[in-house]
């Protein structure tokens, strides 16, 4: 009973939060709603016995990602509203609803559900984090390492793109200006 109540509660909350995130014209409101939605999502993970995933969800999304967003937003003039020129909201809604219905339809069909076989069954008597660790460091070791490298690359890219010459924009400068700048750097012995 607790499960049912919490499912519907969290469902309502997430849907509502995400809806606000999508529709709100205020970036700050949207950001807050998104953060709330993320946390509510982690609620599902806890219900589904994926404790570790839930924790990660809160840490990475609500912690890292959203903080990144909020820092990012400081670069922009968020007060300046971007005019949502969208006149016809019918097409997006119809398309979205249609795809949703279709996905549900497909999942309902027995042909799909019947074919799923458990390859890595949950091990009895071990905690969720332990289980995840066992699979992650055996079967998914290489993807895990690759993901790590990817994160590193992304981090460096993020720093380079956003951080280099914070005062200047290379892309906005003309070639001669860049050349002059480089020249100055060389003279300074850099």
């Amino acid at each position, binding site marked *: 009973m607790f499960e049912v109540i919490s499912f519907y509660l969290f469902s309502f909350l997430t849907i509502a939060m995400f809806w606000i995130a999508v529709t709100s014209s205020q970036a700050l409101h949207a950001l807050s709603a998104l953060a709330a939605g993320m946390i509510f999502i982690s609620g599902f993970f806890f219900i589904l016995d994926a404790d570790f995933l839930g924790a990660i969800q809160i840490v990475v999304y609500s912690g890292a990602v959203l903080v990144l967003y909020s820092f990012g937003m400081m670069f922009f003039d968020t007060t300046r509203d971007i005019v949502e020129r969208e006149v016809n909201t019918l*097409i*997006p809604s119809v*398309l*979205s609803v*249609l*795809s949703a219905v*279709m*996905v549900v*339809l*497909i999942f309902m*069909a*027995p*042909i*799909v559900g019947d074919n799923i076989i458990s390859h890595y069954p949950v091990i009895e008597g071990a905690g969720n984090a332990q289980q995840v660790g066992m699979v992650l460091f055996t079967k998914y070791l290489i993807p895990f390492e690759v993901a790590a490298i990817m994160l590193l690359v992304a981090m460096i890219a993020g720093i380079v793109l956003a951080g280099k010459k914070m005062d200047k924009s290379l892309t906005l400068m003309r070639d001669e200006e860049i050349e002059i700048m480089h020249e100055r750097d060389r003279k300074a012995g850099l």
Partner: protein
Amino acid sequence: MEMLLYIALFSPLVGSLFAALFTAQKKTLIAGVVPSALLFTSFVASTLLLIQVLQGNTINVELMTWMATGNLYIPFGFVIDQISVTMMMVVTLVSTIVHIYSIGYMDHDKSFNRFFSWLSAFVFSMMVLVMSDNFAGLFIGWEGVGLCSWALIGFWYHKESATWAANEAFIMNRIADLGMLIGIFLVYWNTGTLQYAEAFAIMPTLDNSTLTMIGIFLFIGAMGKSAQFPLHTWLADAMEGPTPVSALIHAATMVTAGVYLIVRSNELYDLIPNVGLFIASLGAFVAMFAASMALVNRDMKRIIAYSTLSQLGYMFAAAGLGAYWVALFHLVAHAFFKALLFLGAGNVMHAMSDELDPFKMGGLRKVMKGTFIMMTLASVALAGLFPLAGFFSKDLILEAAFAEHHFIIYSVLLFTAGLTAFYSFRLVALIFHGEERYKIFGIHPHEAYKFMLVAMSPLAILAVIAGSLKMTYFEMVTNLLPATEYHIHSHTTYWIMTIGTQLFVGLAIAFAYKKYIGKVKEDKEFEKRFCYKVLFNQYYIPHFYDEYIVKPYRELSYIFWKQIDLKIVDATVDFIGTSLYKTGEVTRGVQNGNLSTMLKWMVAGLAVLLVLAAMFTLVATNADFLLSVYHDLGA
């Protein structure tokens, strides 16, 4: 023996190649003399071979393989038997004379060397044609003479009419050659070989319809080369070529190739008398048809060409009736006197500065005695007066027709004999007798070179005496050909017929002389008559061909090109290309660079994919139900 054969065959080729070496240079006498000498060699070799054959030897040699694939085996094989040696004699003799004559005739032509090259090449092709022992070899010669004929008719290629006539001759012959080719295919697939001897040995075992097909298709080939109706128009136009060419190719040798083919295939045509009868009827028809056109024509060479056509009709009539040796005999005799007639006409043309209208001549007897005598002899022989060659050969054809009880053919041929006599002597009278009409045109005629006349003299002698060789010839040829002697039932009938024919011919000659020997006046009234117009315009057949075959062909070609090829076939391809291109142009609007739009398209694509997947899932889950519904519908 084999050496002789090869000498006879290849010396014309050597002569041709020798003359060809000089084609790029100015006229050199040697380019004419050497081929002539080589042809004489060939003639001597042929004579020696004739002696061999008269002793009863026949020769069969195989030079080398030509084509061999699958079951097909075609060698370059040559046979010397009674038929081929007869043809060889005719070809080498007439061509030697024509060559020597041409040295004088072509004296002033700047393409003297080229002329001899082609003329000798022609003789070589003709020798291949008559000496081959298989249909494929025959076809080589067949096409070879066609090529040389094309080159020689169009010898003066700067003249539009000459090149046109050359192409006409070649293309018309090609039409017939297709028939011939199909005939050859039929022979091969039914007998498995193209050798005469083997093929004819198998033919009696084949069924009649196949043989009829073979006979008809081979005869179509013969019709083209021998200019039988309806493929006859090229022969008269071929007179655009130099006169020696007309004498050699379009009178004595090439045009008789068709007759040779029928004679050679006598074993086949004996098996299918119906086709034979058709050939004979067509021959008789052509004999009269051509003679009628010769009656009114005003071009000396064309008159002789029609006469050739008419005589070819005689030969086909004889061959069709099964009198193959008679046909061959007439072929030989005709070669002599017709070549003589043409060469004489050549002399006249030279004398008259290439004037061809006999109405502008007259009275040439005084200046050209030799030519006059020879042409008269030839005309007498052509008319078939006793005791010249034409009498014997033509009379035999009439007898054959009579003895075979084909009285319609007989009477047509008899009537044609009268026509022949009339137009021949109309020509002689107009050219050599009467008043000297040429003086108005300021022409000063002169006799040809002496050696030209000397060269012609063997032909004149043969035209006179060929008839007396009849029995020797008969004995020789009938070793190979059916030896039918045509005996009219009673001697009385025979004598009545012979004398009657002679009288009829004599009357025709007399009429021609009476009408044309005196002062010739233009008979305007007569020329307006319908029958004159029809005859003068060659029954409007060239006009018909031009209007209803050549023109539509040309127009159809343009339609095919401009309308169908460019506007339908190519346009369809281009349409496919441009429609793809247009689709790209139109859908390019989708790529407006706006990320939002693209995302919308992406979602739309996702939706479509999902719908498809859902449909697939539905169908897959309900497959049994749907199948049962389908089967119910089907039942």
